[in-house]
């Protein structure tokens, strides 16, 4: 094995060992951080909470790895979801107040090129209207790049359920915004 190359630990579902100069970690962060933040934004009620969720999940997952290995994305998505549930329980009393405040300062979920800006805005609105269970699956599949088995692990549901929710979500998205996406 090349000394500076990192290897894929297939036993742990996609963990990677970083190089001695930390470039493995930087590559992982550049690739995964947008996906994780997108998922966290959908799981939380405000931008600050979403950023906290991403940070807590990455640090917790990373500290569980050996020798600086980067964690499996499915594990980090799962941690984000678990911590979001904890946060929602703690913040239950603030829910209505924050939900009312959310639309004015809501961040953009997607980073489109100029000509896709309108489509991105419509997509964000369509996703927001989906049932949360379907939105979670379609987000992890399309933008999280997870398999149905990994989605099942992340969301603690059977893989068949993940697949059927995904089909329903795609159908709903397509029906909602057919003229813009086709």
């Amino acid at each position, binding site marked *: 094995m090349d000394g500076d190359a990192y290897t894929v630990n297939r*036993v*742990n579902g996609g*963990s990677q060992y970083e190089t001695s100069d930390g470039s493995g*970690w930087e590559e992982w*962060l550049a690739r995964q*951080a*947008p*996906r994780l*933040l*997108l998922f966290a934004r959908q799981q939380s009620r405000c931008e600050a909470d979403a*950023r906290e969720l*991403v*940070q807590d999940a*990455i*640090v*917790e*997952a*990373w*500290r*569980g*790895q*050996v*020798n*600086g*290995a980067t*964690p499996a994305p499915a*594990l980090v998505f*799962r*941690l984000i979801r*678990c911590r979001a*549930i*904890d946060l929602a*329980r*703690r913040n*239950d*009393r603030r829910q209505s107040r924050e939900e009312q405040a959310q639309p004015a300062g809501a*961040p*953009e*979920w*997607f*980073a*489109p090129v100029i000509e*896709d800006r309108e*489509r*991105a805005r419509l*997509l964000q609105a369509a996703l927001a209207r989906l049932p949360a269970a379907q939105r979670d699956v379609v987000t992890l599949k*399309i*933008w999280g790049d997870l398999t149905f088995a990994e989605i099942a*692990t992340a969301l*603690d549901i059977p893989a068949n359920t993940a697949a059927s929710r995904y*089909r329903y979500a*795609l*159908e709903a*998205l*397509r029906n909602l915004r057919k003229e813009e*996406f*086709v």
Partner: protein
Amino acid sequence: MMQEQDQDRFEATLRQISPAAPPPELLARLRAARAAHPPTPVASAPATSVWPQFRLLWRALTVGAPAAALLLLLWLAWVPAPSIENPPLAAKPAADAVQVGHSLVASFDTIAQLPGGAPVRLRCREWQDDIVIHDHVHGVEVTQTTPRVEVIPIRFETY
């Protein structure tokens, strides 16, 4: 329902719109958090996870070794010596490197009830302990993988 070809095309369309990049402030926080918590080296496993295995091994040795010696003496006394010479025994392998690693496999929370009816939240983590013993002289590598579940009770907050 969508045809498979239509679904592929629609998925490709969705993937063209990529998630927004995280703000630099968040990336800076993540890098700072990583710098504040250095990675766990392979050989520096917590003593709490190795000590029980060592104690078990030590207990087995202290109890088993005298008994094994007694049985060996009895066997030597009863069994006649073989007429032909035994072939020389192979050199015993000797471990010259031991690595102990831990991987976090899963993390989830659950809620249980105490006998009095009060709820308590349990934070559960599934770990995988990997012990690798190398004998570079003889080219032997022994790997042992053990699953471990860590359950931490947390007071359930009431409002």
